[in-house]
């Protein structure tokens, strides 16, 4: 029985460690990807701007990716989610003040969850 718990503990330990190693490798890998893009852009420079289609695709990506990310969460949050997201977006765009947008959006969602 003792041997079993000991083995189990060792296995747990290995499992935790392998998660950590994987996590750190993953972080390093994402860093390498990001760095390659930064450096790659600098080196390829003028070459890239010749292909308008690709350039536009890359230009539009951050917005569409982030939007795709938030859409399911907003829909599953329902009406309060939609209102909150809309207000946040408008405030952020009109004022350019992220903090203000954050406060506006969060107070709507907190209000709905706690008082309505």
């Amino acid at each position: 029985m003792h041997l079993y718990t000991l083995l189990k503990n060792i296995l747990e330990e290995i499992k935790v460690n392998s998660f950590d190693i994987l996590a750190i490798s993953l972080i390093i890998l994402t860093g390498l990807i990001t760095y390659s893009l930064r450096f790659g852009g600098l080196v390829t420079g003028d070459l890239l701007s010749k292909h308008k289609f690709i350039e536009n695709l890359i230009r539009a990506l951050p917005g569409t990716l982030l939007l795709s990310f938030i859409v399911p969460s907003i829909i599953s949050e329902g009406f309060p989610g939609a209102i909150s997201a809309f207000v946040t977006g408008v405030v952020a765009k009109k004022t350019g003040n992220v903090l203000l947008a954050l406060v506006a959006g969060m107070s709507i969602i907190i209000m709905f969850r706690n008082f309505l």
Partner: protein
Amino acid sequence: MKSNFIKGFSATIPVGISVCAYGLVLGVLAYSRGVTFFQLFLMDIITFAGSAQFLMVELWKDPLPITEMLFAVFAINLRYLLIGASLTPLFRESSVFEKITLIHFVADENWAVTMSRLKKEKISPFFLFGGGICLLMFWLGSTLAGHRFGVIVSDTYVIGLDFVIIIIFTSLVAGFYDGKDSIVPWLVAALFAYISFLLIPGQWYIIVGGLSGAFVYSLEKYFRGDKSE
């Protein structure tokens, strides 16, 4: 060279302060997701890209969705190709060593500061580097502080912590809104994202929605003709 560093550093302080709001939230989220202090520190230094780090933290779970995460980070950071390309004039007189080392320190915010300054006066890449170091300091300070304070946040649902990321991303998305040209691509992105969210397991809806929307944007520009050309 040194004065360019200091100029860049001080010019980036105002944006640095506003970046702290993101940083604090990222830190708290990272803590609630089980990202360790050290891992967050590594991310800040090695990846050094806000939106990508938010995505990583949001996708963070055991087992780690490695493929989705790498794809997502690649896709969201593809814009650095353009950012890098736009910096070619700034680095024209630089040595290879300078290029290799300094380019790591470009993020959206100090890039914007550098580009607007470049229009007005002649600056060296050390201006960008100074701004990058400034941002990195604010970024490290705020994310790691958020991670430490994360302990205090107990009921994440009542204070809406699970929704904070959505709000943050919404305000980021607003910044990418490009007037009327964005409407159709964004509708397509939202639709495709939601459909694949319902049909495909995992986090692929981010990629599917993002790529389809961006593709529509390119098509639109292609057929209507790009005015900026």
